[in-house]
């Protein structure tokens, strides 16, 4: 049986558990940095509630399949790994689909065809290949939760923009003044692109501003490069 490549680059210190966990939430956020899983990002972010539900379901699948792939990583021959990973992912998606129908039927109906489509979310297979296949169960589990939370954060951020503009509410609670005329387009598919674009624009502006401020600071000879900058320069 062929072994997988060594998990870590020699000479680089082993990432801590916190780093494994936090990576997906911020530094390698699936939505804003890796730009993976765009289909649910566009389709299922019309309300924050839908976005959170989709994020949590993806988290469960990501965590479960990460743990399983990692657990059997030395038993799965390289030659059939894609089929096996996809089978593991698909099984978890099916489990989540059946479970959601039994536990929260209304939400299951609202998410409709997008639960089965979690199978085709490239974030999942991407993490199996890049991480779970070469790391321990513990680290893969943390990575899965981190990535899932990052994805949930990404979806709910876009969902926040879309729901406030499209329905004048947040998580079903009215937040806009009574005179506010909702932008119907934000509830429709183009609203997905608009909402996502607005969030990316805001992030890019913020990163740019932080970089410029740091540049000014270092030019003035003050202690430069805050940790905050490193965090935003993803």
């Amino acid at each position, binding site marked *: *049986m*062929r072994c997988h490549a060594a998990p870590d680059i020699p000479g680089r210190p082993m990432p801590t558990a916190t780093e494994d966990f936090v990576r997906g939430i911020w530094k390698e956020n699936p939505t804003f940095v890796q730009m993976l899983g765009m289909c649910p990002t566009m389709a299922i972010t*019309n309300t924050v509630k839908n976005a959170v539900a989709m994020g949590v379901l993806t988290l469960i699948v990501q965590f479960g399949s990460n743990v399983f792939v990692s657990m059997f990583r030395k*038993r*799965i*021959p*390289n*030659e*059939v790994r894609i*089929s*096996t990973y996809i*089978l*593991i992912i*698909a*099984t978890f998606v*099916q*489990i989540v689909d*059946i*479970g959601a*129908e*039994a536990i929260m*039927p209304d939400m299951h*109906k609202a998410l*409709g065809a997008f639960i089965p489509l979690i199978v085709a979310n490239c974030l999942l297979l991407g993490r199996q290949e890049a991480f779970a296949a070469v790391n321990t169960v513990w680290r893969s589990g943390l990575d899965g939760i981190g990535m899932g939370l990052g994805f949930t954060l990404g979806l709910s951020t876009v969902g926040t923009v879309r729901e406030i503009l*499209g*329905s004048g509410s947040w998580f079903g609670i009215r937040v806009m003044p009574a005179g506010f005329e*909702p932008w*119907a387009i934000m*509830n*429709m598919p183009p609203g997905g692109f608009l909402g996502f674009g607005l969030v990316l624009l805001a992030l890019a502006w913020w990163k740019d501003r932080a970089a410029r401020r740091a540049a000014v600071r270092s030019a003035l000879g003050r202690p430069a490069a805050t940790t905050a900058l490193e965090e935003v320069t993803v």
Partner: protein
Amino acid sequence: MTSSTTSGARETLPMRDDSVPSWQLLLTLTVAGAIAGLAVVTLYDWTRPRVEAHKAAVLREAIAEVLHAPARADTLWLSNGKLSITRPTGDDAKKAQRVYLGYDAADKPTGYALQVVEPGFADPITLLIGYNASRRELLGMKVLESKETPGIADKIVLPSFTTQFRGRVSPLTGIKRDESAKMASDRSAVVMITGATISSRAVVRGINRTIAHWQPYLDAYGPAGGTSHDTLAAGGKR
């Protein structure tokens, strides 16, 4: 290169000594598939009663709404060209079309609940209507499923649209908002939603088509067929 190949003097490539035998690849996939199948089927069987119970509750609630809280409702199955209270056996049971007949507390039939499925602007719109077959009168309407354009055509689920169907006579005709004065004189008129004409017309078309399909079967069915509905005459005032 080519000459060496044609001359037959091939160099043997170094064989990978760590190659996995085919049976092991097959075994991996077989075992993974079996475990996956077992997990999915077990969970499916385990959750099925709960899911079915929920679906039945949703349907019961919808029937209660369109027939205005009947004391009970029977399911009638269409088999061999007529309605029957007995459930068809075998494969037919799943495929058979059905209607629901509501009764009041005095066990008099109050009306049928019919399901309507009609292609809308986006996806099929599913409705449930309450219907008095002898008076050809709608008793109520509820949208069960609609994926019509959010913010515009999803208004078909709002009471402002659905409540006007009560007391309307089949076949329905859709009229524009500025003609709504006709509602009083024309008992078949329903007011369409401005900006959602396709969706609201789909609702009217679907209801008309469904009633046209069922009317002969409902007329032929004894208990609540051609006879008058005293209970409705008393309770169905507009």
